[in-house]
């Protein structure tokens, strides 16, 4: 009696609670709508790109007249000839070029030294991105090395500066085999450097690093940066260094020990404000304008501040008449299905514009296609988490850096065209240095998180988050609906019992029922951690083929899974309700996706496209039997398709097979190589694949194959 009165007087729950309950009760519809909306929003991104603009006023690019003149071009030509002569003299020796560069740099009145380094050994360090940049010189084995690279570093002390900041210019070249392109980029670097050594306006030191790229540009630059930022204070002098130097006396005159010490002493300028890596690439198209390609993606999707790219783009296009490119997927440019989508979006955009003229969403078909190709490449490079060039090494030390690859449109023997190219390239570099020189603070005004759809168009974090947020939105609702759904039944029982007779009131601990499914989740996560660590041990086995490694990996993973199930009980026998299992899975990927979107957004975005539909629409195959024919087949097909796509090796296999057109067993080995590539570059994508994606896929399989026994309590009740 009293309780019924209480029920009548019970106030309506608050609006937000009612809204939550409403959403939870329609969670299937809600998640379908959200997923579709997320994918549509993703396709809309190219139309939403904005034009770039300079945020930092101090940069004022192009405000001063450039000083780089034909005299500097002559200097560059002289330098190039000098190097050619030096190469001719040396006949295969690698030390002549550094020697020549050092000599020339010294003649300019700059400080100069050699930095010698060893190639990076392949290491398994998937968590390196997460910790500080530790000094990994000490980890290298002892021994004498004859094979090492020599970077030549020149430093100009700024006449107006206090030596606390520096701008770094990098010109990579391969000391083993210098091509005419590299010669040109060295000449360009030297001529800019020589101009800057005479500049009175300089307020930041200039460091010119001619990086020996015989082991790859990245390792040369990163080892120099490592030593720059991690001074070694060792109680005993490093044997390693003496051994390297002992092996190579050619660099120094036998008697010039003082000079040697001076050339070997590691010198530093201040903190780096920005770094510019430039190199002259192959001639691409004859007769067209010279072009510059900007590479900006550093490790784990980190980008330099957009202002740096803006300065480069502005000066290159508006002052020096270069054509600026960003990396693109060429295959997308010619694909017909993309063209169809582009037309749909153009029509949609113009329709929207009719509704509200302020919505400028209509882009022309070619623009959309090009934007999509650039965006896809930008996203892919960020998602991979592997730097696209040596600028990535700078970003690890929070230095904004960009690589410029010049593609001349003339034959390199054409002296006139070469001079004009050197003039404009030199002016561009000088202009960028001048702008950065004006900065009073670190780059901070503009965006760090963005995708590029064109060299002058970007999508900022606020926009590109929308599709991801839409994909992620249904997850908590569905988890709440599933976790709540299995609870409400118990609660109702409780209520009716308290209402009636409290004699046989039972506390089932209903709210702790999820503990079992959490246990399953923990076991599977533990398994995933083990699987992700296995390659460290497997890669110690010497001299096996990639395919053998891959097979060992797979076999060990499966064995470990079986052992774990034997130890802790397999989930199918644990008697976990599938709804709770699914709720746990969804919660775990909400956490995983949320974390990954902070570490590397692009990975999370691409992963979400497969993973989230796979999780949301998974339903035990037995439970599907109760449904009607049409929804059942649709659900079954989508479940199977998504599950196959969701398995990382399978997805890789299909992608490779489609792109190559051949389906051989080598693809398994390729998967190993791909994974090796990821962990060597300490990409967080590796961790994502094994700690978020794989366990989620396994849980999804468990949900699909769930036996769906009737819960005992329900049976009793009936």
């Amino acid at each position: 009696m009293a309780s019924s009165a209480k029920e009548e007087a019970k106030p309506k729950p608050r609006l937000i609670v009612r809204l939550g309950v409403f959403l939870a009760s329609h969670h299937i519809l809600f998640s379908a709508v959200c997923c579709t909306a997320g994918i549509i929003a993703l396709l809309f991104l190219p139309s939403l790109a904005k034009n770039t603009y300079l945020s930092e006023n101090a940069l004022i690019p192009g405000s001063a007249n450039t000083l780089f003149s034909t005299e500097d071009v002559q200097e560059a030509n002289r330098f190039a000839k000098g190097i050619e002569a030096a190469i001719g003299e040396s006949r295969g020796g690698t030390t002549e070029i550094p020697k020549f560069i050092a000599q020339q740099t010294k003649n300019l009145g700059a400080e100069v030294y050699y930095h010698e380094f060893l190639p990076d050994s392949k290491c398994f360090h998937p968590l390196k991105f997460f910790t500080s940049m530790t000094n990994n010189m000490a980890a290298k084995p002892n021994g004498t090395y004859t094979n090492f690279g020599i970077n030549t570093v020149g430093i100009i002390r700024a006449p107006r500066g206090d030596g606390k900041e520096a701008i770094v210019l990098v010109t990579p070249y391969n000391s083993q085999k210098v091509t005419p392109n590299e010669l040109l980029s060295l000449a360009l670097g030297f001529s800019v450097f020589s101009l800057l050594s005479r500049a009175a306006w300089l307020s930041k030191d200039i460091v010119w690093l001619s990086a020996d790229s015989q082991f790859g540009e990245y390792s040369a630059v990163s080892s120099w940066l490592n030593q720059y930022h991690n001074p070694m204070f060792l109680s005993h002098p490093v044997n390693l260094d003496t051994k390297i130097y002992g092996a190579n006396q050619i660099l120094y005159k036998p008697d010039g020990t003082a000079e040697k010490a001076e050339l070997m002493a590691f010198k530093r300028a201040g903190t780096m404000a920005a770094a510019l890596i430039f190199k002259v690439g192959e001639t691409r198209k004859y007769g067209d304008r010279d072009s510059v390609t900007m590479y900006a993606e550093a490790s784990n999707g980190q980008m330099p501040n957009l202002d740096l790219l803006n300065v480069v783009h502005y000066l290159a296009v508006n002052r020096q008449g270069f054509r600026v490119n960003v990396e693109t997927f060429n295959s997308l440019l010619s694909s017909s299905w993309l063209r169809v989508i582009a037309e749909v979006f153009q029509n949609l955009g113009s329709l929207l514009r009719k509704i509200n003229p302020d919505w400028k969403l209509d882009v022309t078909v070619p623009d959309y296609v090009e934007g999509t190709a650039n965006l896809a490449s930008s996203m892919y490079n960020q998602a991979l988490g592997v730097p696209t060039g040596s600028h990535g090494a700078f970003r690890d030390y929070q230095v904004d850096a960009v690589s410029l690859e010049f593609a001349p449109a003339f034959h390199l023997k054409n002296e006139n065209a070469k001079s004009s190219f050197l003039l404009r390239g030199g002016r561009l570099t000088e202009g960028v240095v001048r702008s950065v020189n004006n900065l009073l603070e670190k780059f901070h005004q503009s965006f760090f998180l963005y995708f590029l759809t064109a060299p002058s168009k970007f999508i900022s974090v606020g926009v590109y988050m929308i599709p991801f947020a839409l994909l992620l939105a249904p997850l908590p609702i569905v988890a709440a609906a599933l976790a709540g759904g299995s609870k409400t039944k118990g609660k109702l029982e409780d209520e009716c019992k308290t209402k009636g007779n409290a004699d046989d009131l039972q506390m089932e601990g209903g709210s702790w029922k999820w503990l079992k499914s959490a246990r399953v989740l923990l076991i599977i996560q533990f398994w995933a951690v083990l699987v992700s660590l296995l390659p460290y041990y497997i890669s110690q086995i010497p001299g096996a083929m990639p395919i053998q490694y891959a097979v060992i990996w797979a076999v060990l993973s499966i064995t470990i899974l079986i052992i774990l199930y034997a130890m802790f009980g397999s989930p199918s026998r644990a008697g976990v309700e599938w709804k709770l299992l699914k709720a746990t899975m969804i919660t775990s990927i909400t956490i995983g996706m949320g974390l990954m979107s902070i570490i590397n957004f692009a990975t999370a975005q691409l992963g979400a496209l497969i993973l989230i539909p796979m999780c949301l629409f998974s339903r035990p195959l037995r439970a599907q039997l109760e449904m009607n024919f049409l929804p059942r087949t649709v659900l079954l097909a989508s479940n199977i398709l998504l599950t196959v796509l969701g398995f990382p090796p399978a997805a890789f296999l299909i992608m490779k097979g489609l792109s190559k057109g051949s389906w051989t067993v080598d693809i398994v080995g390729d998967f190993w190589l791909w994974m090796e590539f990821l962990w060597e570059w300490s990409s967080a994508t590796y961790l994502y694949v094994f700690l978020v994606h794989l366990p989620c896929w396994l849980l999804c399989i468990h949900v699909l194959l769930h036996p769906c026994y009737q819960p005992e309590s329900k049976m009793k009740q009936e």
Partner: protein
Amino acid sequence: MAIRNFWSMAAAAVGFRLVLVLFGGDLHLASRPEVSTPLTSIRRLAEGYWLKQASMSPYSGSMYHGSPLLLLVLGPLTNKRSVGHHDHIYCSLIFVAVDFIAAMLIRATGRRLQIARNRNLKSLELTEAVSNSVNVSAGDIASLIYLWNPWAIVTCVGSCTSPIENLMVVIMIYGACSRLAPLAAFGYVMATHLSLYPAILIVPIILLLGYGPDAPPTKVFRIKSSSASKTDVSDNDKSSSSRDVQQFLWKPVFHFILWMLFWTFYVLLLSSIVLNKVGGLQEMFEKYFFAEVFDFFRSFFLIVFNMNIVFMVLPLAIRLKHRPCFLAFIYTAIVAILKSYPSVGDSALYLGLLGLFANELAEMQFTFFLFFGYIGVSLLSPVMHNLWIWRGTGNANFYFATGLAYTCLQTVLVVESVSSMIKHDRKLRLLVTA
């Protein structure tokens, strides 16, 4: 219903800690802000010890804020190095032992609570109704939670002094539960000396000593006795049944206060002996208790900051006076939320104590959300820290937001556990009246 394999699981937990300490290499846990705070950092302790050895006051700078006793006990160990292990290996080994002792004391406390609970339910004649459905060995669960809690493991391996503070709190609660006044007083004095905040635990300790361990509200007993007396008309029984209702015993409380005074003097004496070497007592009170804030508002901030904790003490004590042990748990949780320089070690303590009430809190809501929330927050925090410190694309607000989310979770935990405990009591009353 005791947990099978309790000992093997406990041993595995200790073994896991030992493996991490001995072979884990340098995990850089000691430099994590979540693990070691300026008050508990063992690196600062080592620095303080070094200053002391150099006959300088460790309190004269802003390096060391901890207790002089810890300096005396742990200081010499920080000097010893062992090749191939990380710097503070001996301290870490001590912390492993300390964690194990704390877990065992939690288990013993759980046993006491269990006995009291069974007795009370028997006297209310509810054993069948309540006990048969949910009756797990809460002590085992609590000590396993404490041993296997990742945060406790991280705190233990990450070499900070929180395990010792936690041990003192556990000693105090155990002593009070088993009415060992000297032990309780020792724990209380030491815990207060080490971090001051456990001072508010005096309320549950006195209640525990006076009334004994947790019991259903006195009202329930009274209803029971009145209904019993209705059936038995004879008035003779009334006196006997009213004996079920616990009377406040002044004797243990009195003992506790005497012992507390004794221990206080002893600790102060010890500290001042240390301090005679290193500086005045005055200085210790100046430097050691107070967090550093802006000079102008220092006192204002201190009052506001710590008042928040004190505000909660009285209302909770009135509402939950029949469950002093639970009250102690709530107080430690509130302290962990509101203290200056919180760390995961504080949370490890109250999460361990939470396990003691596994039977009563079986109906708690939002546990799924809380569990995954805790996991999410503890993973989010290092990521945000990385974004802020190492990558420079985030800023301090990112990290601060994680802290806010964490506090929200803790608040939900406290609110939910109190409300479900009250619900449990109400349910008992309904069962008795029915």
